[in-house]
């Protein structure tokens, strides 16, 4: 590739790493709010373990995004000093924790996609992204399993748990479509063998999620209203509150360490 062509490609790689990093970071922040709020100590640790896995993924990806774009911004700069409109995570991951069923549904829908993504990204032409995927794939495998186990038990549990689990899947379903949307930035990277074609992951995702929902005696919601915009920095209402809490300490005490 000649020198003039490299700049846009480099910028796209940074954008892509930032998107995947933001997904992991925002969901990690959401899950961290379950600390001391789980229905028992065991689940408390399970959810925060998943959050910590995702935070680890976010750190690698944000660091890489900062390096690729020129090295002037660190992972902390990217996590703590960007504004709401600069975050490019999926709308799905920023949705509020709600009740336990809502948190589990969000994890099922997201981790099923993320696992397929990491599996495919292991053969990326970008060595760093491939390495991150290679480490993260085992983590996502467990995250999905955890969500599946609870979806089955809540869906096929009591009337109350079934009702809540169905309501959770219904509420989050509109945000699924965005997960599989591929814009020009990603299309160029897919052509270059760097990114995964998210749309190509949809059939496998459908098969898996449909199977889990059926076994859990839940009904797959109708496709309908499909909000999007997360990848362009257009977020839902609760995201600003999440961000202000996450960034508060760093902004109040720049460079604080402990």
């Amino acid at each position: 590739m000649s020198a003039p062509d490299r700049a846009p490609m480099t910028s796209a790689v940074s954008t892509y790493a930032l998107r995947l990093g933001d997904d992991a970071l925002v969901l990690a922040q959401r899950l961290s709010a379950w600390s001391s709020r789980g229905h028992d100590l065991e689940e408390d640790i399970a959810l925060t373990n998943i959050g910590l896995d995702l935070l680890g993924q976010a750190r690698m990806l944000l660091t890489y995004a900062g390096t690729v774009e020129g090295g002037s911004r660190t992972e902390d700069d990217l996590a703590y000093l960007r504004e709401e409109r600069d975050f490019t995570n999926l709308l799905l991951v920023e949705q509020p924790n709600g009740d336990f069923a809502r948190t589990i549904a969000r994890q099922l829908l997201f981790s099923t996609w993320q696992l397929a993504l990491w599996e495919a990204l292991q053969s990326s032409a970008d060595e760093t992204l491939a390495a991150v995927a290679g480490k993260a794939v085992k983590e996502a495998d467990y995250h999905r399993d955890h969500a599946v186990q609870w979806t089955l038990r809540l869906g096929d549990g009591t009337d109350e748990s079934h009702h809540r689990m169905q309501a959770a899947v219904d509420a989050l379903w509109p945000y699924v479509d965005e997960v599989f949307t591929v814009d020009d930035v990603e299309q160029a990277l897919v052509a270059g063998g760097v990114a995964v074609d998210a749309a190509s992951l949809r059939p496998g995702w459908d098969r898996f999620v449909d199977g889990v929902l059926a076994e859990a005696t839940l009904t797959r919601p109708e496709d309908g209203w499909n909000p999007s915009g997360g990848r362009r920095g257009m977020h839902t209402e609760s995201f600003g509150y999440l961000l202000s809490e996450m960034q508060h300490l760093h902004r109040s005490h720049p460079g604080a360490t402990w």
Partner: protein
Amino acid sequence: MSGTPPTALWEVFVRSKRGLSHNHVGSLHAPDAQMALRNARDVYTRRQEGVSIWVVPAIEIVASSPDEKDSFFDPAADKVYRHPTFYDIPAEVQHL
């Protein structure tokens, strides 16, 4: 949590590495065996403590009673010949 019946208690055994036996590491609550196994993974192996986990319903464990301590254990106290201390143990044997 108030109003919620407590879930069953499970005893957790972890094998720290191949070649060693499973050791009791603690207990936890879980609604069924599969969740108990996953909870054990999260609670007891998050710092690389294990390569294998057993979970056993605590209610299934039959324990000796403190009342039986004298008849159970004291008779072994003066049987020094049962200890394998009269043999030279080869240096290669690590986990005897």
